[in-house]
């Protein structure tokens, strides 16, 4: 049969070399993640209990649970989603499906990409100026969530635009030639085929806002509140800030507590991610073209 040539053997060697190299990179990358998770579970695990999850902090936040912060984070993320998702999708639809390809559109696209790189503390200051003071929402869930929404908007727009552009142009052409308007085309063909990508992208990005501290610190999140928020105009506690507080601001906190808070926070983010990944896998299973 075929003899292995010198060339072949050499190729095989480089092939093996690169495989090992890439594998090592991957291991290197996941090491810190595993270490963080491991530390959190070992040190924070003992703190986790139903009581920890569902009661108020007591005794100057050195005992009790983190329920107000947990609930607050969910409020903040949900309201932020409600604001940024419709707005972001609409903007992306316009940019990808309607806007003419001219310098203005290109400038806007560039601006959006750059906006995604603005540090969150800058967004925080913007939020104070715009929502807390100018719109007079005060420091409240609404102001904090809108600040988070503004911060995530660029990412939402980019994720949506990419999903829209992954839908083959031929589908649009076919619809237009049939006498469909742009909107009919979007509604019947483009959106149904982009929506999985849009949603998973958005969930992934927005779940990260659960961990943001700076944007909410001055706009709506409180150090400690003895009551739960009742409307979006109330202030609230939030996990990320609570973690900062129990880790650095309050004396005599049992050492397992900050780890417990961090573990809950990370679990929420991972839960969101897992949801979006399963969702995406489910939709991938029914690939349409």
């Amino acid at each position, binding site marked *: 049969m075929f003899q292995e040539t010198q060339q072949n053997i050499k190729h095989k060697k480089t092939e093996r070399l690169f495989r090992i190299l890439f594998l090592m990179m991957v291991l290197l990358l996941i090491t810190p993640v595993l270490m963080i998770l491991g530390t959190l579970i070992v040190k924070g695990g003992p703190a986790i209990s139903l009581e920890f999850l569902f009661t108020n902090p007591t005794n100057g936040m050195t005992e009790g649970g983190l329920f107000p912060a947990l609930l607050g984070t969910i409020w903040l993320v949900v309201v932020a989603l409600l604001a940024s998702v419709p707005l972001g999708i609409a903007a992306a639809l316009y940019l990808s499906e309607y806007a003419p390809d001219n310098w203005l559109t290109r400038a806007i696209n560039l601006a959006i990409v750059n906006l995604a790189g603005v540090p969150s503390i800058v967004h925080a200051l913007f939020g104070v100026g715009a929502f807390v003071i100018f719109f007079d929402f005060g420091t409240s869930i609404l102001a904090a969530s809108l600040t988070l929404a503004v911060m995530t908007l660029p990412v939402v727009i980019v994720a949506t635009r990419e999903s829209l552009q992954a839908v083959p142009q*031929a589908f649009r052409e*076919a619809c237009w*030639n049939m*006498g*469909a308007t742009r909107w009919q085309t979007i509604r*019947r063909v483009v959106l149904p085929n982009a929506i999985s990508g849009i949603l998973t992208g958005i969930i992934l990005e927005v779940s990260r806002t659960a961990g943001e501290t700076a944007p909410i610190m001055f706009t709506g999140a409180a150090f400690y509140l003895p009551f739960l928020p009742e409307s979006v105009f109330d202030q609230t506690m939030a996990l990320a800030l609570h973690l900062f507080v129990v880790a650095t601001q309050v004396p005599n906190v049992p050492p397992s507590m900050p780890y417990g808070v961090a573990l809950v926070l990370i679990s929420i983010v991972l839960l969101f991610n897992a949801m979006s990944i399963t969702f995406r896998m489910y939709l991938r299973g029914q690939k*349409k073209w």
Partner: protein
Amino acid sequence: MVNPSQDAPAQAKNKKVLIENLEIKYGDTVALTDVNLDIEANEIYGIIGPANSGKTSFLNCINRMDDMRPNMSTTGRVWFNGIDVTNWRNLYSLRRQIGVVFPLPVGLPLTVYNNVALAPQLSGINKKADLDEIVERCLRRAALWDEVKDRLDSLGSLLSGGQQQRLTIARALSQEPDLLMLDEFSIAVDPVTTMRIEDVLKELKKEMTIILVTNLVQQAQRLADRTAFFLNGRMVEMGKTEDLFAGKVQHQETLDYIEGRFG
């Protein structure tokens, strides 16, 4: 287009399509120029010519798809059913009267049923019974019904290439078109399916006008009543198909192309 439309000239009224001095540009580049032709009702009008000669651009002008392409501009006049297409108030209604089939089969990522029901739905037909009837009739006419009647709910984009091309024909028919434009439909289709579609077209000719852009010279010979030859952005000539293929041509280039001496 520049001129506002006056009343259509008499000859436009009894033609399905009449083209005068059509010129198409992309930006500053002329893609097709100096086209004058007319298409009779219920004829199959063949258009042959090598790639990039302007055939697709020509079709795009008739259903005003230039409107969707920012860099495309046209001058000259195009009458469809005696009405200047630039004066058509509602471009969507113009496009609904003209069915289009593309070179590569485009099964929309909808079910087989919805691929065919989409156009009627867009024009306001929503009763299930009506849609069922349209879907079956159009699939039958496109010679696809027997193959897909048991899987109307599976995705159209998962059918084989030949089936998808017949699906797009069924979809075009669901618009109840007056004019059917086929753009090199057989490019990605096996010979057997091509023959079946050709038979379908011969039947359809009784009810509608067909413009058949084709990369196969023999296909034009088999189907077209009259044929136009496009080359390098010009219409070189047009005539009765049998005349052209009998060698009665005005330009040597036409004969060379028909006989496969270049292309």
